[in-house]
């Protein structure tokens, strides 16, 4: 079995960015395909009489898209965390997520909590509050603060457990190259 140590912040942020890019693309394709099959969710009317009328949104479809996107995102993260111990980008970068105090993968419940804490529904809140002055801006301000909190608490933790890890009971480990683990005599 390969030697492991606590995963560093840089590698974890990189995995997060890659995962987000992949899942965003996945959501874009799926929602885009649904939009193509049905009427578009958002109508754009550049020639509208007033700026307020430039957009028209089918609120029912917006809700469906929110559920669809959240479901895809949850499946992308929760299922591999619980089944194989890491999201696709984490596995690619030789990391795994295990339960705190055990060597087993996260339970589905812990994986769900971790997913919710890593991806609070800022966009959903913002979209639902569209038209209410400054709620959207407030949601995105809170989002920035939230990710800063996760980053700082992860970096300052001896066990590299950010706030989300502590609340979900998870630890992220990284495999180290064999040569770095006293392998000099194995040549």
């Amino acid at each position: 079995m390969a030697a492991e140590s606590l995963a560093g912040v840089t590698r974890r942020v990189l995995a997060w960015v890659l995962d987000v890019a992949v899942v965003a693309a996945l959501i874009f394709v799926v929602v885009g395909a649904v939009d193509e099959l049905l009427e578009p969710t958002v109508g754009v009317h550049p020639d509208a009489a007033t700026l307020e009328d430039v957009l028209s949104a089918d609120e029912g479809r917006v809700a469906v898209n929110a559920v669809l996107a959240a479901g895809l995102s949850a499946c992308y993260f929760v299922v591999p965390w619980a089944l194989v111990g890491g999201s696709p980008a984490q596995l690619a970068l030789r990391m795994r997520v295990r339960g705190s105090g055990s060597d087993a993968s996260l339970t589905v419940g812990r994986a769900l909590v971790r997913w919710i804490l890593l991806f609070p529904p800022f966009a959903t809140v913002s979209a639902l509050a569209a038209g209410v002055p400054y709620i959207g801006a407030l949601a995105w301000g809170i989002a920035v603060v939230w990710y800063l909190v996760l980053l700082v608490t992860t970096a300052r933790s001896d066990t590299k457990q950010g706030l989300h890890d502590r609340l979900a009971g998870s630890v992220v480990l990284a495999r180290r190259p064999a040569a770095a683990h006293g392998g000099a005599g194995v040549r």
Partner: protein
Amino acid sequence: MFADARSVPRGTNLTADVCVIGAGAAGITLALELAGSPLRVIVLESGGFEFDAETQALYDGRSIGVPYGDLDLPRLRYLGGTTNHWAGECRPFEEADFEAREGIPYTGWPLKKPDLDPFYARAVEVVRLPTHDWSLGHWASEDSPPPLPLRSDRIVSRVVQEVEPDIRPLGESYREELRAAPNVTVLLHANVTAIETDRSGRTVTSVEAATLGGNRFSVAAETFVLATGAVENARLLLVSNDRQPNGLGNQNGLVGRFFLEHPRFLAGYLVPSGADPNLGFYRDHRVDGHLFTGFLASAKEFQLAEGLLDLQIRLELDYGDAPDDAAGFARHLMALAGDIDSWQELTIPGAPVPIPYLDVIREALEDPEDTYVYLRGDIDAIGLTTRIEQAPNPASRIVLVRERDDLGMHRVALDWRLSDVDRRNVQQTLELLGAEIGRAGIGRVRILHPNEPGWPDDLNGGQHQMGTTRMSDDPKQGVVDRQCRVHGMSNLFVAGSSVFPTPGGATPTLMIIALAIRLADRLKATMAR
């Protein structure tokens, strides 16, 4: 039916009753109107079904007067002609547009509005507009955003109807009708290089045609109609100088003169007194599904009283430059933050990061300016872009130059000249607009370049080339008579905007089509005898 001039045997002499040169708005309308008649019609079109750079280059020319930009830019040389990039704006001339204006020489048409009304009604059908009604009462309905509440009738709101985008390229929208017409042959890739006459020089016997590949043939007909646009109509008459040394119809030196445009430039700003005024009436929008836009103009009574011609004022949102100071940038960021609530509607909720919808991306890429307008927030000012009815000026002209094109024809130069009345028109109308806007409490008008001599750097044509074979009953004042027949020629007619003595305040295409229908009726009536 369609045929390809490249496959016509070299040296062939084709024959027809009517030969139409050019298949743009005028040529296609003539062909459609003559379809089904006993007359055999050949339409000679320089291009094919699609744009071709080598053919388009035959339009290259120089500008030697007021800066005009590329001479070939406003026009296209393939089936459908300039309608292939037409914005679709339609409005008929008003009664006053046909009248002579006191103090402005060369104004006044030999025709009057009632002469053209029946043909306008049919032109509306050609471009499939929903109504022949351009009145404000019809278009400023409850379903439309309101026009600006000006308190006088000296500055008025008017509308242009817009032809639906799929109808605008007439070469496409009427291709099947042209293909099915048994008595009409549209010969593609056929460039007319000269018009030949009998010994008297008064009757056209044939036209010489050539393809870019070197094929040459001729077409003989009883009647010929030039329908190649204001620049080419003059060019073809001028180069056809075998029997008439100055060119056909140019016995009084008028061919190519009186080149007209709808000059435009940013003449001022309207700074609204309230944020984000509702200018929807002055942007493209629909009422009952029909597309139109509004604009401001001086009232005809004001024009007549002041000795001016028409002037359209288009209202265009202006958001100014990005702030370059820290405080300005902070205010801009705050404005954007305030807009987050609305732009969040563009993204897919539930996603881990904001992802725009596919349609939003498509729209944003198609029209970046509107995207910027949407994201930018408050309106800083409203640009006032003029479209001037240029006063007739004999010094404004198309001339032949030494250079020749790939077919050996002399190229042309445009010596575009404007006059004092054009400049005075802008100044006086903007001053009047400022007074009316202020009186109505809408805002203030800032006039750019007030009372300055000359023209601003952003002056350009309105892409409406007109007036080089102007219409007049007097051969010393015009190239064609009221029937659009070239003075001194028995069987040569001109269709298109080159016959306009004055350009009117309206866009030219509907008038071009109306005049072409009128000419077709006349040909059918006279040639059937």
